[in-house]
């Protein structure tokens, strides 16, 4: 199965996104902030997809995105922001930092699936 990671400081959101990705055919690893994600990534196989919240303690999603995109081993991993940030400037900032897609909370399974389909990563 394809591997994915969900990074969100809300355990409820982590659980919901992991369930959605599970239903779409992914095996999911969870992290509660950017630093936790980098630590876990260093110990696991490279995922195909990472869903990233923006506002998190320790290391936020934007900082994680910039850091991960600077590391060659994660250059071609699909990264999608899933966040409450809804201003157009934030969307642009995330895209310029290397996000492949952007979902504004609240989301549904259909929304996640439709965005992944755009990226060629729909139901596995």
């Amino acid at each position, binding site marked *: 199965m394809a591997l994915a990671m969900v990074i969100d400081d809300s355990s409820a959101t982590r659980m919901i996104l992991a369930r959605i990705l599970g239903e779409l055919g992914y095996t999911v690893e969870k992290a509660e902030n950017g630093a936790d994600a980098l630590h876990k990534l260093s110990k696991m196989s490279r995922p195909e997809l990472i869903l990233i919240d923006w506002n998190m303690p320790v290391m936020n999603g934007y900082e994680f995105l910039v850091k991960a995109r600077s590391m060659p081993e994660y250059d071609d991993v699909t990264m999608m922001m899933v966040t409450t940030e*809804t*201003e*157009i400037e934030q*969307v*642009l900032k*995330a*895209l310029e930092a290397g*996000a492949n*897609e*952007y*979902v*504004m909370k*609240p*989301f549904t399974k*259909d*929304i996640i699936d*439709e*965005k992944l*389909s*755009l*990226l*060629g990563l*729909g*139901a596995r």
Partner: protein
Amino acid sequence: MALSSNDFTFLANYVKNSTAIVLTPDKDYLVESRLNPVARRVGVASITELVAKLRTNPTINSEVGSMVAEAMTTNETYFFRDVKPFDVLKSELLPKVIERKGADRTLNIWSAACSSGQESYSIAMVIKEHFPALSSWRIRIIGTDISRAMVERTKEGIFSQIEINRGLPAPLLVKYFTKSGSEWKIKPDLTSMVDASVMNLAGNWPMLPRMDIVFLRNVLIYFDLQTKRSILEKVNRVLVPGGALLLGGSETTMNVSNDYDRITSGNTFYYKSKGGPQPATGPTQVARAPYVSPRGSAF
């Protein structure tokens, strides 16, 4: 209060006559969920009273009649729905039109049953993004819908956060939309490409320009065979010879119309008009095309 079978039959006949949408008895839940809000808006206590009001003037042009008809249509839509039709538009259909009509420099695309306009604007974004050569052409993307409210929404080009979350690539969001409060507005260079008007596919058609490409997706599934045949025959008359028809993933012209050739393109397909009317088709059973799951490239 549950709908009586007498009232359901009246409503089903009214909806069939006014929109050609077929409501089978197992759709009573749908009728109740769609018409309870209409009853409240009209100011009556129940669907039974709504039906009584409709019986006094059962035409689609009456206020109650149009509200009932609009409520029974399905407006499910999102940007770049199913992805593949827009891949075909980009990779094959538009390049062919450019090749064929280079001297004429006009392009007409019809989004039939356009709902709130996401399909029309997805088409406009494909053209803007990938065909700069068309900037000097006269382009008309014509959206039509039976619902006046949906037509107005298409003209406005204003979408909620939930709507722009659905299927719209983020790079296109930042490029073609502005945000105002919680709403997202399409920029004028795209709204100027789209015309929208009220049209009942199952009724008398207004004069339409000859179309190069017709999007008629997830519409025929609501109609009976006779209505499907009639609509496909009229679409063929509207299309230029060799023009393209795109249907929904579970829809087909097979056993409905002989006016089209099915053309495979990549891992999907479209229908190409043969030109004039063709000999009548044989069997009356409607076959369904195999469903192709959406998976494709970004726009």
